[in-house]
């Protein structure tokens, strides 16, 4: 039972961290759209780039 004296405050610190992380997520705008992101994982991202393949080979630094 003595371990409670350490474990409970430890749990409190964890809660504080969890809330801090949550607040950060809210400020980051992660809760602004609650519908869209749920679907976005279903879409395949086509491999498209604004430069052609040849340009990419010649100029590999450019994305």
């Amino acid at each position: 039972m003595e371990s409670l004296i350490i474990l409970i405050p430890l749990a409190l610190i964890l809660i504080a961290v969890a809330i801090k992380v949550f607040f950060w997520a809210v400020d980051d705008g992660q809760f602004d759209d609650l519908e869209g992101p749920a679907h976005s994982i279903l879409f395949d991202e086509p491999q498209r780039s604004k430069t052609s393949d040849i340009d990419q080979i010649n100029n590999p630094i450019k994305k």
Partner: protein
Amino acid sequence: MTDTRCFHCTLPVSEPAVFFAEVEGTQQPMCCPGCKAVTEAIVAGGLENYYQHRTESANQVTDLNRRLQEELQIYDRKEIQKDFVRPATPASDSQNDRFTASLLIDGITCAACVWLLENHLEALDGVEQVSVNLSTHEAQITWSRSETALSTLLLEIHRIGYKAFPWRADQQEALLKKENRLFIRRLAVAGIGTMQVMMYAIALYSGAISEDMPEIYRDLIRIFSAIVATPVIFYSAAPFFKAAWRDIKIRHLGMDVPVSIAIGGAYLASLWATFFSNGEVYYDSVSMFTFFLLTGRYLELRARHATARAARALTNLLPPSCLKEVNGQYERVPVADLQPDDKVRILPGDAIPADGVLLNGSTSVNESMLTGEYLPIEKQQGDTLLCSSINVDHPVDIKVTKVGEETRVASIIQLLQRAQQDKPAIAKLADKVAGWFVACVLLVAIFVYWGWSGIAPEDAFWITLSVLVVTCPCALSLATPAALTAATGYLHRMGLLVTRGHVLEGLQSIDHVIFDKTGTLTKGELSLTQVIPLDGCSHSQEQLTHLAAAMEAHSEHPIARAFIVHSDSDQQSCQQKACDVKNHPGQGIEGTINGTRYRIGRPDFAGPSDRLEPPEHDGQWLLMSSNDQPLCWFRITDSLRPEAVDTVQRLHQMGKTVTLLSGDAEPVVAATAESLDIRHWKSESSPDDKLSFIQALQKQGHKILMVGDGINDVPVLAGADISMAMGNASDLARTSADAVLISGNLARLADAFNLTIRTRKIIRQNLAWALGYNLAALPLAAAGMIAPWMAATGMALSSLIVVANALRLNHSNKLVTKPNQSEKAYAPFEAGKAGATV
């Protein structure tokens, strides 16, 4: 006829399909060139995936043209961009030209749209990042201004079938966002806190049951529970305390007062118990109660924000522009830049941007938005043209006489403000119940305390507290908002957007429904209703219509549209081609079909030698002749909406009085009233007349619902107890109404009445359940028989039941007439407008 549907927007296509587009190797049918162009643009961009992933059909697309391009170019002006475009990197960096634009996208129906928009735009030159928010339909586009003009991006959005408007993130919007984030933070603190406190509570309960927990540990756990519960009370529950304090200050017992007493009381008592090591602690109940209530309020808040956004989206249209003469050249400028004495060119179909005098020629204008008169009015050189009326016939020049606040429209707005001040308020059921409830609970608590102090003074405080916790109006305070939120969401999906809170609760007390005529009960556009062949005419009515349609296909006049729409259902008419067609402005049209010369128009134009009189005075009659031989009469009128008769009948059955209140001329109004079986009607009413008419009814104690669309209806919409605007109504009417019939289907109005009755029933059930539960628990608590855990479980259960009951409103299919196909995709309200301006 097989059921062919457009591959893009899924509206029915008349057989045989005329337009096709190739998607993944298959020719898919298309309903119109607009959808075809969009589908081709999507496929060309390699984005066919959209069609696989979408869960809702797209909206039908109106054709793009040069005109739109020109209008969008106004957005390239820096002074207009400053409202919604900001630098993407700090402004100090002088050579950077990366900017972020906030846009509101119209036409987003599901997650696939978001994907399509993001991928299509990101493939364009100069575009760096695009993010589209599915809930708010807001898009953030970061791009390089020197590489690509903003109008190009906007045009690309239009090209794949959406509409984009500048999203001016004003103060109100910023407030909504802040409120939303603050609420989520509060929810998080309450949720995480509740979970933690409940874990401690399990330890406390098991200790209490087995009775072998040393007091030191019990007190330790209590202290930590208090530490976790404190932020829940002071941070998460703060809005309840604030609202309760506000209620007390204005001497009004709302729902927040008992909520605050219960939360505050239980928390203080638990603190007391913790520090003096006796009694019970209620940290878990208090936290959970806060969490539940916040969840309910959050759902309410989200529904409110969604409608606020939708309502604001209605006003976020293209800034009106017009063609102004500058040094002998016409330039497209924003209407706001106009000054008196400017010369403005107005093309047919355009709205007139300011009051002005006609400089040359003649034309006819449609003033139905201002007066309710549905037939175009002839204007000669020197006549005054009013702002917001629509030019019908030819391009004309006007000299601006009045702009902005001096125009006729602005004077109607002043009337609107006056009407809003006199608007009667509607009392809310829940608030009335809450007042009584609070008074009763407080009385009972005092009584219980007084009673127990006589019997067992040391228990009196704890028993009184358990009475307060048990009667905690959690379910009671959720009862109404849960039902209203569900009903509002349901109506929105059916095409009726409720923009003010009192509509659902107020509808049930309405006993008088007043309709405007033009554009509300009628479609507001001319259509062909009757063909009367003259003696000696060898053609059938159908043939006559086809002949007329073939000629009118060459005209842009609204009357021509009446014929063309009529012949669309029938492909045969396309086989006839008129050649040599000539428009005679203000007179009619003439052309040659298969070698015969036909004329359609005014009697003195089509058959000048015969001097025929129209068969009736009502409506507009056109004469058709072949080689100067009169053939038949066409009657052109503004036809009724197909569901109007049925809707009026249903309203009568519900016992409502229906009145027709129009600015149009008496014979037309009388005929409309008769065909709809409306007994009360009033014609030739000015906006002022309409307002005083309903105010007189209100003085007699009637509750009035007004349905209208025009600018002339605006004051009366603002003055009615509840008002509804049609989806294609003027901006002003839509923003001043309490609800907008987005789908334009009047049947929804009768459905809304049905739904209100049901909503009220559900609210009553909820209130009855919540009160019943509290009343049943009250004597037990007063007798000192309820343990904290029982109070907590009972409370949670009763709240869940109330919410589940409210959600039944989402499935009330049988109440509502089936939506028809065109409505399902409800071609957005802008479609009608776009048709007029694009």
